[in-house]
C-alpha cells in the first residue's frame, strides 16, 4: 500500500518545525543565508534543504490572505526523475517513496530537468557531487514511522498515512467545509498522481504550484530511455566524461546562480 502525506494549508501555521525536523533527522547542513526582505529562508530547495515553507501574501477580492505551503519531493506515482535517470539511481518503492542510490549517480542532472516540480538538487559545492532530495524519510518509513516533518507538525497540517485513505480524507474535508477549501486535491491527478497531496483555501497556481495535467511526466522520457539502451550507455559514458571535464567551470557558474538568487 502506497503511503502518502496530506498537507492541509488551512491548518498550517507556518512555524517551520518541519523544515528543522527534516534537517535534524537527515543531518543536513545549514546554509549561509541572508534576510532578503522575507520571512522565507533558505531561498530554494537545495542539496542541503529538502523541504522548505513558502509564504504567499495574497490580496484578492475576498480580502487579504497569508498562505503557507510546504515544498519537498512530491514522490510521484510515476516519477519522471526515475525514468530520466540513465544509470537507474532512482527507485519508486512499494511504500511510495522515490529514493535514489547516491553511489550510482553520475551527476548528469537529467532528473533535474525531468522533474516537473524542480525538486532534485545538485551538491554544487562538493568535490564529488551527487543529486540529493527528500527521501520521504524512507529509513523511518521502513521502520513503521512517519516522516520526520509530519511528526514535528504541531497543528495537524501534515497527516501521514495510506495515500488512498488520505485522498478520501482530503475529499471529506472539502465536502464538509466547502467555504474553507477550493475543490481541488493537488496531487490526486497531477503528473499522474503524487504521494503528497495538498488542499488549500486558494487555487494552487496562486501559491506557485505548477499547473499540470493528469499525464504521467514519465511518458515523455520513458520510450526514449527504454528503447535505446546502447545509446544510453554511450550517453552515460559521454556525460560522465564531459561532467568531469567541466566540473570546475560549472561549479563557478553555479555559485554565481545562487548568489544572484540571494541578492
Amino acid at each position, binding site marked *: 500500500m502506497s503511503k502518502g502525506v496530506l498537507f492541509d494549508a488551512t491548518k498550517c501555521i507556518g512555524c517551520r518545525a518541519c*523544515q528543522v525536523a527534516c534537517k535534524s533527522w537527515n543531518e543536513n547542513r545549514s546554509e*549561509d543565508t541572508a*534576510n532578503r*526582505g522575507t520571512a522565507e529562508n533558505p531561498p530554494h530547495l537545495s542539496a542541503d534543504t529538502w523541504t522548505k515553507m513558502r509564504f504567499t501574501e495574497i490580496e484578492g477580492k475576498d480580502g487579504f490572505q*497569508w498562505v503557507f505551503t510546504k515544498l519537498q519531493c512530491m514522490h510521484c506515482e510515476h516519477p519522471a526523475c526515475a525514468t530520466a535517470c540513465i544509470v537507474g539511481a532512482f527507485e519508486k518503492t512499494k511504500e511510495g517513496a522515490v529514493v535514489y542510490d547516491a553511489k550510482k549517480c553520475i551527476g548528469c542532472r537529467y532528473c533535474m530537468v525531468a522533474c516537473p516540480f524542480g525538486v532534485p538538487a545538485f551538491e554544487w559545492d562538493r568535490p564529488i557531487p551527487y543529486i540529493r532530495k527528500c527521501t520521504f524519510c524512507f529509513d523511518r518509513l521502513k521502520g513503521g514511522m512517519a516522516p520526520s516533518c509530519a511528526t514535528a507538525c504541531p497543528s*495537524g497540517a501534515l497527516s501521514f498515512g495510506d495515500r488512498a485513505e488520505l485522498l478520501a480524507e482530503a475529499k471529506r474535508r472539502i465536502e464538509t467545509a466547502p467555504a474553507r477549501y477550493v475543490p481541488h486535491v493537488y496531487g490526486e491527478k497531477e503528473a499522474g498522481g503524487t504521494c503528497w497531496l495538498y488542499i488549500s483555501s486558494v487555487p494552487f497556481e496562486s501559491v506557485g504550484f505548477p499547473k499540470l495535467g493528469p499525464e504521467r511526466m514519465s511518458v515523455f522520457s520513458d520510450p526514449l530511455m527504454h528503447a535505446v539502451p546502447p545509446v544510453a550507455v554511450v550517453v552515460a559514458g559521454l556525460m560522465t566524461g564531459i561532467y568531469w571535464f567541466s566540473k570546475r567551470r560549472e561549479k563557478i557558474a553555479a555559485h554565481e546562480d545562487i548568489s544572484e538568487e540571494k541578492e
Partner: protein
Amino acid sequence: MTNHWIDIRNSDCIMIIGSNAAENHPISFKWVAEAMERGAKLIHVDPRFSRTSAKAHIYAPLRSGADIAFIGGMINYVLTDMDKHPENYTMEYLRQYTNAAFIVNSDYGFNDGIFGEIQDGRYSEAARNSWKYADMNTPATDPALKDPRCVFQLLKKHYARYDADTVCRITGTPSEVYSEVMRTFCETGRRGKAGTIMYAMGATQHTYGTQNIRSYAILQLLLGNIGVAGGGINALRGTSNVQGSTDMALLSHILPGYLSVPNDQDGNLEGYLKRVRPAAISPRNLAGDKSLNWWGNYKKYMVSLLKAWYGEAATADNDFCFSLLPKADPKVNYTHIGMFEAMGEGRIKGLWCWGQNPAVGGPNATGEREALGNLDWLVSADIWLNETAEFWKRPGVKPADIDTEVFILPAAASYEKEGSITNSGRWVQWRYRAAEPPGKAMADLELMDLIVVKLKELYAKEETPQSEGIRKLSWDYGDRITADAVAREINGYSGATGKLIGGFGALSDDGSTSSGNWIYCNMYTEAEGNKAKRRGTVDGHPAKIGLYSDWAWCWPMNRRILYNRASVDLDGRPWDDEHPVILRYEPEMKWQGDVPDGGAAPVNKAPRGNRQLPFIMEPEGVARIWGFGRAEGPLPEAYEPWESPLKKNLMSGTMYNPCAFVGAYRNERGTPDKYPCIGTTYRCTEHWQTGIMTRNLPWLVEMMPDMYIELGEDLAKARGLKNGDRVTVSTARGEISAVALVTKRFKPLLVDGTAVHHIGVLIHWGYSGKSTGDSGNVLTAHVGDANTTIPEFKTFLCDVRRA
C-alpha cells in the same frame, strides 16, 4: 492560565489578543485547530496581521496600546445587550458568582479619567477607601442589579462612554470589523457556550498592563466564562517554566506560593499577617452565604515555609525566624526597572544574572548596558556567553574603561539536568537528564548548592546578626544535591513523623509541618510518590473534556480548571452539559470530574449558613468585576501609552496612567513631531527571547539570519524604502540598524481621522554569538505598569529612514 492548553479545544470562540500564538506558542494551535474543527470561531486582535491572523475567522487590527478602549467597548456592548436580551446571558452567574450586585461606598467618584485624589503618582488613602464596598464585613447586595450604587450600575455608567464610534476612533479598528468581533465573542454569554481569551506580552507590557488583563476578567465574568471548560483567561507564558518561576517567587514582591514579601513596617509575624491576611467578607442577600476565604490560612503556609527554610531553628518562641527574612522598603521599586535605575545611580554594586540577559532583554538597553559598568562585580550563569557577560567589550566601548569584574558560570542546558518545569496550564512535569553537560557546566541546582555551602562555611564562625540568616538556613542536602530532595522539601513534611504531607489542608501554623511552597503541597506524597512523573494518557473525566488528570500533576491539588465551582449553577447542574467540569454531586460521592474548588455541596443543596460561595480565593467568595485592590482604580480606564502619537486622550482629559512608573535614568521621551510612528517589539518563531540559545544554532540562523523590522507598504513608500533595504529605526533613546521587511501585513490605521503607522521590531539580536545584530530594546523606554512595573515594550514612538 485559569484553564490549560488542551482545554482550548472545548471553546466555542477563541479571542487571541496581545498574543501571536501561532508563531510564539505554535503547540497551542494544535488545540485551537481542534476547536475550529468543532466549529469554534477564532478572533485575532493585533496591530499586525501575523500567522495567527492568517488562521483567524476575524482579524481586527488595533493600535498598539488601545486595548482597554477595545475591551471597554465590548463590555459596553454586553451591558447594553443584556438589558434587551437577558435570556442570552447567564444572569445567575453574574448575580450570584461575581460582585456585580455589591453596593459600593457612596464616596466613590470618577471624574475625567481619575478615581479620586492623587498625591505623588499614588491615589490617596481616602481615594482608595472610596473604591471599597460600603460595608467591608457584611456588604449589602442587590441581586436584581438595579441599585444605582451597585457594581453593575457603576460599571454600566463607566463604560457607557465606550461607544463603538469613540472606541474605533481610538483603536483604529474598522467599525464593521469591530461590530463583528463584539457580536461573535459576546455570543458566548449564553448558557452552555464558552469563550476563551488567550493573551501574552502584547497585553501585559504596557503602563496599564494589569488593567488590560482586568478588562478581560470583567468581560469574561459578564459572559460567565470563568471556571468553565473552554473558557477562562489564559496567559501564554513567554518561556517554558515562567509559571514555575513565578510560583517559586522569581518576582520581587512575593515569596513562594504567592505569599507577600515582608516589609520593614511589619515588625513581626503577627504584624505581617495583619497586613496580608484578609478577613472573610460575608455578603448579604446572595444565595450563597458562606465565604471560605482560603487566604485565611495564610499563617499555616507562611509558618510552614519558614520551617522549610530554617528547620529546627524556627520555633514558636522566635516567630519561626520571621525576623531573618529580608524586609522590603515599601517606597522602593525592586523590579527589573527599579533595579537598573539603582544600578545607574551606583547604588547596587553586585549583580547575579542567572539565565538572564538584560543587555538584550531589558528596556532601554543602551542605558542598562551602561548601568552594568557601575557594578563592582557581575556573575553570569548561562549556557552561552551572552551580551550581558560580554557587555564590557560591546561595540563602541573600550574594555579598559570598565572596572566591573565579570564571572562566568557555565550552566547545563535543560536536557542536561533533572527537575520539574511548570507549564502555562500549571502542570508540573518532571524532566529527566538526557545527556551529560559539556565540560565543567553544571545544573543550576548544583551551582547554587556549591555557593550556599561555601557561604555557610564562610559565616559559620561569625556571630553578627546579618549572618544569622545564612547560619540558620536549613541546608541538609548532603554531598550531592538532587532535584528529588528539593521536590520533597517543596511538598513538605510532617515534623512529627518525617513523612511527606498529603496536601495543604494538612499544613499547620504551629510549626509542626514544613512546606517550601504550599500550592505544590500534594505533588509528592508517600502514597503516590512524585506525581510530576505520572504519565497516564487516559482521560478519566466522565465527559472526556481532555482533563488527563493522571498526566503529571497540577497545582492546586491537581485541579485542572481553576474556579470550577463556578461551572455549575446553584443547583449543581453544569452550565454546559456537553463539557461539564465538575458534575453529579451526590452527598456520598461528592463531585465527579475535576477536583472541585472546595468540595462543598451545591449552594441550593447545602444547609443555610454553609452555602459556600464559589470563588474561594476571594475574601467575599465571588469574583471581582469591581477590583479595588489595584493601584489606579477599581475599573480599567483607557489612557494613552507613555509615548503616544495622539495629542489628547479621546476618552478623558487624563492623558497617561497617573500611577505608571517612569524611570529617571537615561530615559529620554520622544514626541510625535520627531517620531511619528508607533514602534512595537515582538518575537519570531525561529528565535528565542534574547536569542542567545537560538542565534548559536545554525539550523535556526539559516531560517532567520538577520535582525529585521517590519513595516507596511504605505510607510515604506513615504520614506522611499524598498523591501530588503537596510534601514535605521530611531527613538529618543537610540537607534538601530536592520533589514526592512516591507509587507501588506501592516496597514496604516485611521486613528481619530489620521493615518497611524506601526513599525514592528524584533527583539532577538545582540552583539554576541553566531548571528549578531542590533537589539530592538535599544529603542524601548524605562517606563512600567503601575502595579507590576512590567516595561512598556509594546508601544513607543519611533521613525525609520534608509541606513
